């Protein structure tokens, strides 16, 4: 099967690296917006909170499944790397898991438990989202710094933690601009305006820091002709930031025209940032230590997974699209009937 692709020991790890990267990117965008909605919770009043939850209620569970898929691919395709990375990130992973637990159950409990408990579950939702965002950003930073627990790395990781949290809140605000109207939408525009600088700092910090962590990455970016071929990444990001700035400055339009622009532009920004990182780290899965080839599972095991992926992934994308179509338009109150 698939002989024309050449040696499976070469292309299978690449295929799985692409699958894993794709899952991470989809996860960061999709769970990014619903984590962001959780981060914005303290700034909204009670009625707005119900509407914010309603805007993500039908989606959050499937969004989080992309994280399971991404970590699953790391686990099954690059088992050695999975062990090395997760053991090194034991503490932030733990914080993230507690955060994911708190916010995941808070969705249900805030709606179903006794009404007196609601403030408690609202807090759990918000704090859970915050723990998850901060720890994911922290892990990103530490990963960029080569998974070293030294002082500068930890400081940098704390910074990326704050920045990713800001970025999630920003894409969350973009989602709310898209899915709500009236005063809440105006509030969301305001939140997005205040979040934009954080996104800039985060993107800038990661872009500047990554090449200086390793001379290998520096050479990959700043040698000719790569520097020309890669130019669309920073230029595209710049363009999207200008689009974001302009669309947010103008605020909500009449007839809700253009309300999709901030969310779409942020998705583009996340994607460009992600491609930049992926380019920097390829072919390493553990920075500067383990390549995807060294840590890949046996080809026959990868092949049987890939076989499933080819049939199942289109179906997953199809019914995910169906779900977003069913719950299209402005968010209304969630009802079981």
């Amino acid at each position: 099967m698939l002989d024309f692709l050449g040696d499976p020991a070469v292309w299978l790890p690449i295929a799985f690296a692409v699958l894993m990267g794709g899952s991470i990117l989809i996860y960061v965008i999709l769970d990014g917006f619903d984590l962001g909605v959780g981060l914005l919770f303290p700034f909204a009043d009670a009625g707005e909170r119900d509407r914010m939850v309603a805007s993500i209620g039908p989606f959050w569970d499937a969004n989080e499944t992309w994280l399971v898929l991404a970590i699953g691919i790391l686990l099954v395709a690059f088992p050695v790397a999975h062990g090395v990375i997760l053991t090194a990130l034991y503490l932030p992973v733990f914080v993230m898991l507690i955060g994911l637990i708190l916010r995941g159950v808070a969705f249900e409990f805030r709606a179903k438990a006794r009404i007196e408990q609601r403030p408690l579950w609202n807090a759990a939702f918000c704090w859970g989202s915050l723990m998850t965002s901060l720890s994911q950003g922290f892990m990103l930073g530490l990963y960029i710094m080569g998974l070293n627990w030294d002082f500068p790395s930890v400081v940098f990781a704390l910074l990326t933690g704050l920045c990713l949290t800001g970025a999630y809140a920003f894409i969350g605000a973009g989602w709310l601009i898209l899915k709500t109207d009236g005063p809440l939408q105006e509030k969301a525009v305001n939140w997005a305006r205040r979040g934009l600088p954080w996104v800039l700092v985060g993107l800038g910090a990661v872009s500047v820091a990554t090449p200086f962590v390793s001379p290998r990455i520096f050479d990959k970016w700043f040698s000719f002709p790569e520097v020309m071929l890669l130019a669309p990444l920073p230029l595209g990001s710049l363009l999207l930031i200008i689009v974001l700035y302009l669309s947010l400055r103008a605020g909500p339009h009449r007839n809700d025209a253009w309300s999709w622009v901030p969310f779409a532009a942020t998705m583009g920004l996340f994607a460009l940032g992600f491609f930049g990182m992926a380019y920097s780290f390829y072919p390493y899965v553990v920075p500067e230590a383990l390549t995807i080839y060294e840590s890949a599972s046996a080809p026959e095991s990868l092949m049987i997974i890939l076989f499933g992926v080819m049939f199942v992934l289109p179906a997953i994308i199809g019914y995910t699209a169906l779900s977003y179509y069913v719950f299209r338009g402005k968010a209304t109150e969630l009802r079981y009937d």
Partner: protein
Amino acid sequence: MDELILSRIQFAANISFHILFPTITIALGWVLLFFKVRFSATGDMRWMEAYRFWVKVFALSFAMGVVSGITMSFQFGTNWPGFMEKVGNIAGPLLAYEVMTAFFLEAVFLGIMLFGFSKVPSWLHTLATFLVAFGTTMSAFWILVLNSWMHTPVGFELRDGIVHATDWFAIIFNPSMPYRLAHMLLASGLTVAFLIAGLSAFRWLLGDRCDSVRLTLRTGVVLGALLIPVQILAGDLHGLNTLEHQPQKVAAMEGNWETRGNVPLVLFAIPDEDARTNHFELSIPSGASLILTHDPDGVVPGLNDFVLADGTVMHPPVNPVFWSFRVMVGVGMLMLVVSWGSLFAMRRAGSLDNTNPWVFRILAGMAFSGWVATLAGWYTTEIGRQPWLVNGVLTTAEAVAEVPPAMVGTTLVVYLVVYGVLMLAYIATLTHLARKAAKADDTDTDETPRSGAASVRLVPAE
């Protein structure tokens, strides 16, 4: 304590907490489909009310299962890197198929199932309910394939100390898989049967006399009465399968030290692993031989066969396996008595209104009995696998990560606190939902739900 025992406690805590919720959602999904199909076929509002109440329980249980499941997928890496390094070529594809064929299906269609009733045509809502139920069952299938393979590994070869798959059919349909899968699916059915009967009985005791509570009470009791004899049979077959492939586990379950014939069935004893004998033994002569070999003289393996010449113990710790097994069997017998007893009492009284209130009290008390039996059963089989992680291939000690014990211990304490709080909140919320439903008796019985008419509902779900 060292990182091995701490990591084991941590994983045991997580997986114990986790399994409680899939045990509910696997069977409850099918029960909900039954409610929905009955409603579609008859237009009888009682079925829809039953659906509406139990779908909330489903949603809550599902969320608890998802978040605790995510935790476990990470703990493979944080605490047990040796597992994937050694058997990743087999465990990997099985886990991948679980994510791809089950997790996404459940998660995406859950949104439509919970919130789509007024947004999609009725058939699509029914289909979504089916796909969620199907997804939970697929998830159970794949994870039980992997778990069974860890007990009875086949279809592989060792190359440079790493396990490589040679026969996927043999791996998937490994010797203990059919028994374990049937036993677990039936356990899920029984857990849900007693939960439905128990919570409905609780509503009855609160004075709720609405038609849907009568309906769900009957559904629960009948389901329980039908499943428990099948489960006892499936459990027996599973035990015989274990005897064939993991005799040391059966020896621990039976508290049998020496390999011999005429082994008694131990009803009660205090097994003593240091003295390698039982104290205060109360037993039926030749009972174990009879059950396990269908012959009173049949030879049953004993624990002393699994001690190496240098004194290394290669059988599981006896007391936890011995006691978990008895708890599981005890609860199963109680289920048999209670479900058939309630059925007879209800039939003899002619109607629920004339039935002895003790029937409802006992059923309410048994609401979570399925959890006790399921956990006890899992402890029996999983502790019974020790000291192996993958039977005969990889020991638990070889797989553990070298994380500082203090770190494992600290995180363990936080997990335990979070799980404890969530467990209390979960049970309190189910009770609250039952109370709320009992109070709202008859307020929403006289209107017909209409698909596509989003604005006509009087009672928002939340």
